[in-house]
């Protein structure tokens, strides 16, 4: 799974996500979730992270399930005018709809995790440069920003503390703090760009060699077709 071309994986997941929007089939949504789960097991994805991500997702899915189910039942009762047989059938439809909708939330979550938990940021950037001819300037900017995140997080805390020590009472989401952080970030980006250029980074160099090499193989295409085909079956059902 980790060997699937990251660019192909990226587009396959996007396509599957779009198709999932039209997929109301319980079975095919379950199939998609099962496929994603199997792929993540094969790729030895970090299941601790998976469970953490699933926590809020479950909350959303359960809320949606309850809202759809209860709302659907109430509407059914009004429309049924007290007919017990009719009410029962409406209940069944609501349950199915509620399950389909909440499963769809899981389907989206699993598609997202399938990509994020099995694709390294370096792999994606190198692959985008090689398969889509994205300019190194963009790819390395993304990588640098990604790698700077821990430092930026620490810096935000320091700026917030600086405001408080200076006697300015600010909240963590204060625009003033965000402004200072933004100015610092701009300074960061300038300094970092100079450090990269000092090491010979040339944003227009199309002939730079690359440590990671990615090709699109038949297996990648086949994998992409399977991922997209599962929700497509649900749409066509």
């Amino acid at each position, binding site marked *: 799974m980790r060997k699937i071309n990251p660019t192909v994986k990226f587009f396959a997941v996007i396509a599957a996500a779009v198709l999932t929007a039209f997929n109301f089939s319980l079975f095919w949504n379950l199939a998609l979730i099962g496929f994603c789960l199997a792929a993540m097991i094969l790729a030895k994805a970090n299941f601790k992270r998976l469970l953490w991500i699933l926590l809020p997702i479950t909350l959303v899915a359960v809320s949606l399930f309850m809202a759809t189910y209860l709302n659907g039942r109430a509407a059914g009762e009004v429309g049924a005018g007290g007919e017990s047989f009719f009410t029962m059938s409406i209940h069944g439809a609501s349950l199915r709809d509620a399950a389909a909708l909440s499963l769809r939330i899981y389907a989206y979550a699993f598609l997202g995790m399938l990509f994020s938990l099995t694709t390294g940021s370096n792999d994606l950037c190198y692959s985008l440069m090689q398969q889509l001819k994205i300019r190194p300037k963009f790819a390395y900017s993304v990588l640098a920003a990604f790698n700077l995140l821990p430092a930026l997080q620490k810096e935000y805390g320091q700026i917030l503390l600086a405001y408080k020590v*200076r006697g300015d009472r600010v909240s963590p989401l204060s625009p003033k703090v965000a402004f*200072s952080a933004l100015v610092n970030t701009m*300074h960061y980006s*300038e300094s970092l760009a100079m450090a990269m250029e*000092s090491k010979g980074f040339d944003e227009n160099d199309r002939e*730079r060699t690359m*440590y990671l090499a990615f090709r699109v193989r038949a297996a990648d295409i086949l994998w992409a077709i399977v991922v997209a085909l599962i929700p497509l079956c649900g749409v066509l059902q």
Partner: protein
Amino acid sequence: MKEYCKIENLTFRYFEESKRNVLENVNLSFEEGKVTVLLGNSGCGKSTLAAVLCGLYPENAGYLESGRIVIDGVDMEKLSFRERCRYTVQMFQNPDLQFCMKDLREELYFCMENIRVPREEMAARAESTAEKYGAADLLDKPFAVLSGGEKQRAALVCLLLLDPKILVLDEPFANLDEISTKRYLDVLKKKIAENRTTVIVIDHKASNWLDLADRYVVLGEKGSVLRENISPVDLASEREFFRSAGLLDPFAVPQRKHVAPHGGEDAREAGEAFAANGEHAETTAQTEPGGCGHDDRESVISLTNVTIYHNKKVSVLTDVNLHCRKGEMIAVLGPSGMGKTSLFLTLLSQKKYTGSLRVNGEELNRMKKGEIFNRVGIVFQNPAHQFITTNVQKEVALSLRIRKGLAEEEAEERALPLLEEFDLRPFRQFSPFMLSQGQQRRLGVLTMLAGGQDILLLDEPTYGQDGRTTRAIMDRCQKLSEEEGITVLFSTHDKELAREYADRFWIVEGGSAHEEN
């Protein structure tokens, strides 16, 4: 002298329409395989000169009015960054902003990709380079967990892999302790011996380079050359010139200037013992409450059996017993990454601790945050994190307004002499973010000194400062301590500075902290 690298008639400013040149008609040349140390006051254009020399300016900022740089007969203007890095590469002051990848191995790959090294050779070359320059242990450690010293060493290894003809180092000992500095210099020596690499170093301390430098060049205003050929042998005869130019005296023997306002004979002896021994002397007195002499002054900070935590499970410092009294100046010493900053953050209630930590007799955990900030101020290692206005004068005035309740106009007026004292008055209308790193640090210290808190925590307050501004900062702290009873804790790697100004020394190392004589 064979002119291997020649800077000809360089005039540069940050804005084309500006009247203020940062560099004006600078002419300098460098010999192949020699180590040149550029000295000069903070803000005289040293870092700008380095960036122009490496082609980073005006490509990234500024306007080059005239001049050219020729290395080995090649005009640098026509070269791309890829071609240029064969000639000059630069290492920067801030160790956090030198890497775009996650760890040293990836960063080395990035460097090799830049110079088009074939993919198959990269892994072996990364390993061998790291091994050769003693950085194999850093290869797979994320930069986020490296200390400042380790980051500087990693940055140097990346540059050496590129095998440049000229290595430009801008204050490479940024926040480095002695061990890290020595390891860094060893790597550099090896490279110079092997490849006759030309090295141009910017530093404020000439004494850092006594073993390695071939000559010293002193720059004045706008990069003008005041002295071009001071050899290390002649350095002693130039001491008077260094002092008059406001530079750090390379052979100054630290004289302890600060005497705590009340008594403190024990402290004086402790300081002198430290100065005499140079290196860490044997600990003679683990302080106990009231155990640092017979001083009856009010205890301002008191840590008893304190353990400071990085997170729920990991402790940074354990079993700390330290105390200081009103009006004392305490130097906090110790290797990089050992917990000096954590100790400061704990005093601001930003880290969890167990044990008893009292500020002015009150347990810190029971104090409100606002109350703590009214009593304790901090200057961070990176002062750019603490600017909250877009104007230098307003930055200082804001501290006066908030803390001393002055009206806006009065505060701005009172800020001017303070700016004058710290050589910042000419820049009063600048954005703090436009200042040089040295100037930013002075402004950071000034904003905090103007804040009026009883306890000041200064994290490396004089790094990157010349002799005059170092003295201005520390003299101001000393004045506040003596006249207003402000307690100052300053962390530093500069032992001379500590000996000169501190009443006592707190050593943070090996997972704990103690007082040392």
